């Protein structure tokens, strides 16, 4: 909605100026919620978001600075919507806005049935404590400011599920899973009947050894945490995965050179991209694999090497 079409009681970001300061939307762990990349959330998880709203002046000064008439009370509110599941809602104590005090925290509790992404919007709403409103003043429940007026939806959207293909990662006890204790940190598990048009997420799993995770990679709560794995480990998993897939699918890959029909998210689509960007073409990659395994491995490491080999 262009600014000039809004009623005169609507405020701009400049009007709020140093009167009201708002923090970022954060997750319970304190991380900025808008920086999520779609890797952490899983279906069935609720999402809690919070945002601090600090009033830098007293309520009388607030009314004066925002040009509000006597009897008008300004409150802060938030609404969220999830287009992909056609659901929406408001802040936790809603629907009524939260009356502004010196320090306020907006909380949004999103139900576990959402998916995809979540758009959030913070609003200032005016309610009247009197039925006798002055002529020309805003109506009861009027929206006088929204961050949606200046911040585009993409910059207010929290990504829960990315659109990119993702490979399942499972933490299992190698002792129980493979029947013998192991010092290995990971293993790549492939479905033996894998084909290039299979979906990656259905036929490939990266298994992480629970015993090693428990021993060496614990998070702040002292629980095993795969997020503590260093970049060099992730690079090794990528090299291992591409090697394993190339070895399994090399005959199928050698028999064709038209990859345009491969569906997004398929094993073939991912492998063709990785081999082409590493070796220039699939045929060159296969030639390396057949004739010079050491070069094949070295080139993969060149491609997947982390920015730093040091542990974080």
């Amino acid at each position, binding site marked *: 909605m262009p600014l000039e079409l809004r009623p005169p009681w609507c405020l701009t970001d400049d009007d709020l100026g140093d009167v009201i300061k708002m923090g970022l939307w954060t997750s319970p762990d304190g991380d900025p919620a808008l920086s999520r990349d779609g890797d952490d959330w899983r279906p069935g998880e609720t999402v809690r978001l919070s945002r601090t709203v600090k009033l830098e002046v007293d309520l009388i000064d607030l009314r004066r600075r925002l040009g509000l008439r006597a009897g008008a009370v300004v409150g802060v509110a938030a609404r969220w919507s999830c287009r992909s599941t056609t659901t*929406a809602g408001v802040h936790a104590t809603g629907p009524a806005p939260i009356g502004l005090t010196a320090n306020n925290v907006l909380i949004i509790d999103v139900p576990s049935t959402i998916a995809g992404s979540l758009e959030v919007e913070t609003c200032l709403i005016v309610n009247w404590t009197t039925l006798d409103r002055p002529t020309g003043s805003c*109506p009861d429940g009027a929206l006088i400011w929204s961050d949606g007026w200046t911040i585009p939806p993409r910059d207010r959207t929290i990504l829960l599920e990315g659109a990119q293909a993702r490979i399942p990662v499972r933490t299992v006890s190698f002792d129980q899973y493979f029947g013998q204790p192991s010092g290995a940190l990971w293993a790549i598990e492939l479905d033996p009947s894998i084909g290039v048009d299979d979906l990656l997420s259905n036929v490939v799993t990266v298994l992480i050894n629970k015993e090693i995770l428990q021993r060496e990679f614990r998070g702040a709560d002292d629980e095993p945490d795969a997020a503590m794995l260093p970049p060099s480990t992730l690079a090794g998993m990528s090299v291992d995965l591409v090697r394993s897939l190339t070895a399994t699918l090399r005959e199928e890959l050698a028999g064709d050179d038209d990859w345009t029909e491969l569906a*997004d998210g398929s094993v073939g689509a991912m492998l063709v991209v990785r081999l082409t960007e590493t070796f220039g073409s699939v045929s060159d990659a296969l030639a390396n694999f057949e004739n010079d395994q050491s070069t094949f491995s070295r080139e993969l490491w060149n491609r997947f090497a982390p920015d730093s080999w040091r542990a974080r």
Partner: protein
Amino acid sequence: MTTFDPGLHLPRATGSAWWRPLLDLHGRSLDQLRNNRIDIRHAEFHPAGEQRISESQLLAWRESLNDWASDRSFPTAMNLEKSSAWDVKLGLRLLEDMGHLPEVLHPDVWCWLATNLLPHFVAYRWGWPKPKEGEIPSGGDAWARFGPGPRNGLRLAVQRILTYGPDIASRASEQEFQSLQNRPAYGLDKRVARLVLQTLVDAFENPASNYGKNGGTRALDANDVCIELRLINSLQPLCFAVEDNIVGTVDEIIERLPYIRKPLAPTGLASSDNR
């Protein structure tokens, strides 16, 4: 009723070519479709979903749904009123079976179910897309009743029960549903949508109300009320209003309906909704 483990994850249809398998199904009889072959290996699952539904579980579920549908006149042809009633029954049944699953609202799950497991229910309710110049239509828009969007036929049935509850859903008309669903600015909020629809169906049953009476029709009045609400919502968000205020706002619009209604076009149809 089928009981699924609450941790179960469901297959998803992803990508822009989800509609392609339907080209082969177009025009097949409902009897042929009710046992359509499925291939779960080419369905995507959420990567964190360790417990995946199996092909045999899906087939057993479909068989149970087919039996249920046969007891409710499937595949006898339906008129508009019966179609709406079918949606309510189907929505209730699907929710009974799936309501506790984490992906019950996931658009890609409904897309997979509609294109693979239950295309006969969608074709029964909404029919096949009409051929264009003798060709079966291609592209997601033509197949929207099977797709990941909110027009998916199965998803619509579930969403109506989830949003409005079976009591209001069974009293509302198709046009009333659509008038709200087409206004996501306030229609996505379950509390608001339910209050608006409740007020509309109450008004229709109230002989003293203007709604659907006194020169108006239920379908066009629903559209007019929802357009007015959209305008009000942009200045006074309904999602932050208490119950009485929302009901009062709808009632006030209904009172003004005689002044809001547009004259009927010569064909008897209202002019477009693009106001």
